[in-house]
């Protein structure tokens, strides 16, 4: 059987196809988060009204305490928990490589967000991505912002 599967290389037909679904989707309860990014260039996390845990990405309730969270404006500063440089990957990102990805903990929050650190060619080394490396948020210009997670990125806070 192992052999058979290897040997059998008859002629076969190949076709182009695609699977596609389109959306006009609602971001639901996250509307405030995305609106603040788009309209005001501000980052908001949330904080549990009971245990005080800071969520970023924000969630409107604490899954540990089962109580609501409240919105908290962030300073936009934080630090790297762990980072990597991606040099191979997803088809719709091949023209953007290398991409620097890191878990970044915002100063006011208790969890890290996985986001992009924009680095110059010189900066783009693992040694610049050490734990504790300070980073700060940078928003795209207002006219380019759509209210999405891609409206901002991080840079080294030197």
């Amino acid at each position, binding site marked *: 059987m192992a052999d058979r599967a*290897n040997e*059998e290389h008859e002629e076969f037909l190949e076709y182009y196809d695609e699977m596609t679904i389109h959306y006009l989707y609602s971001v639901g309860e996250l509307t405030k988060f995305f609106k603040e990014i788009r309209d005001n260039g501000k980052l908001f996390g949330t904080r549990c009204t009971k245990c005080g845990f800071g969520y970023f990405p924000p969630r409107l309730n604490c899954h540990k305490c089962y109580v609501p969270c409240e919105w908290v404006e962030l300073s936009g500063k934080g630090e790297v928990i762990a980072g990597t440089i991606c040099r191979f990957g997803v088809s719709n990102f091949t023209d953007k490589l290398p991409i620097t990805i*890191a*878990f970044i903990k915002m100063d006011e929050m208790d969890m890290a*967000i996985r986001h992009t650190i924009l680095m110059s060619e010189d900066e783009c080394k693992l040694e610049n991505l050490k734990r504790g490396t300070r980073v700060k948020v940078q928003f795209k210009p207002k006219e380019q912002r759509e209210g999405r997670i891609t409206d901002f990125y991080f840079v080294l806070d030197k």
Partner: protein
Amino acid sequence: MPNRVAIVGISAFPFRVRHPNYTYYRMAYETTKKVLEDANLTIHDIDSAIYGIYNDFFERQFMPDIIVHDYIGMILKPGTRVTTGGATGGYAIRTAYMEVASGLSDVVLCLGVEKSNDCWDPVTKARTPELVKAISYSADCEFVRPLGSFPAASYVLPVRAHIEEFGNPSEESMARVSVKNHGNAVGNPYAQSPMKLTIEDVLKSRYISEPFKKLDCCLYSEGAAAMILASEKKAKEICKNSGKEPIWITGVGAGNDSNFGGLRQKLWSLTSNVYASRQCFKMAGITNPIKELDVAELHDAFTGQEILSYEDCGFAKHGEGYKLIDEGIVEEGGELPVNLSGGLIGCGHAVGATGIYQGTEIVRQLRGEAIRQVPDAIKGFLHSVGGPVTAYCVCIVMERS
């Protein structure tokens, strides 16, 4: 006291980059045919089926299980599909175990299949980047996918955190895992990537997601694997006829961590692995796994992840996993050989089939039929992991009486 459940049949369909002459359902059929032969049963003896199929995008078909169910002759019987990323195979075995132990079915087929390399990017004319894009939809589509979701990045970040916490594993230790697993695959007809490599070869391969290099990563495959699980009474009957030894499932554990790795307070520990393995060992009555287990198949999508798993499965203290590879403990002939089949790195990763294939290797070891046989193996361990930042984990202990 739960009902006892045994594995009474195994089979696999070779893991290859592509099987262009096979639809996924024909691969499933051939694999079913072989597992029935192994157990000396016909399809009419099977009560129910659990399917491990990860990604509808791979099969170019939503609900591919219903097509397989028909095609292999299971019409009018129950069938349930499991889809939990790279842990799909492990969770499929766990679900099949539940079905038998619950008393709903006596004889259950557990079949994993995946056909990933029909994906194709019209811009680059390449298959892998489009396949990886199909996977990227398993990352959070609001917060993670739009920024670029790379499976290697997802698994390297805990390794990076580990390196910063403990100063290891080094790139050399990771390379040793690559050499071991590619080497173990040599001679395995089901393996996609058997290779005799040197540490240098691995270190020289190009970076994928730093510090993971090409030879630190498994490749995606097309393939299939199957098992038949049976209740104690049925297992004894079936094995009497087939002449095979029943292999008992004595421990089952599972735990899913947050897919947002940033929520974890110790990123350097794959906590889903900790939870699943402890639960599994507790059920199996195992307190010192490295002493009590004879053989293990760990989910090694990436070399560094295998090393972290040594620690999180309790084979080594935190920060000391690298010693197991550096000191040869997990090599063939070592105290606890890991991935004698070649693992994902040596065999390839036919996602929904992978965990089940790992299971067939453990069964072969316990039956005494393996290619790289551990002498007199009695207890084996299967570890199946998947999802963003190893979110899903299932562990299973198997034993021969």
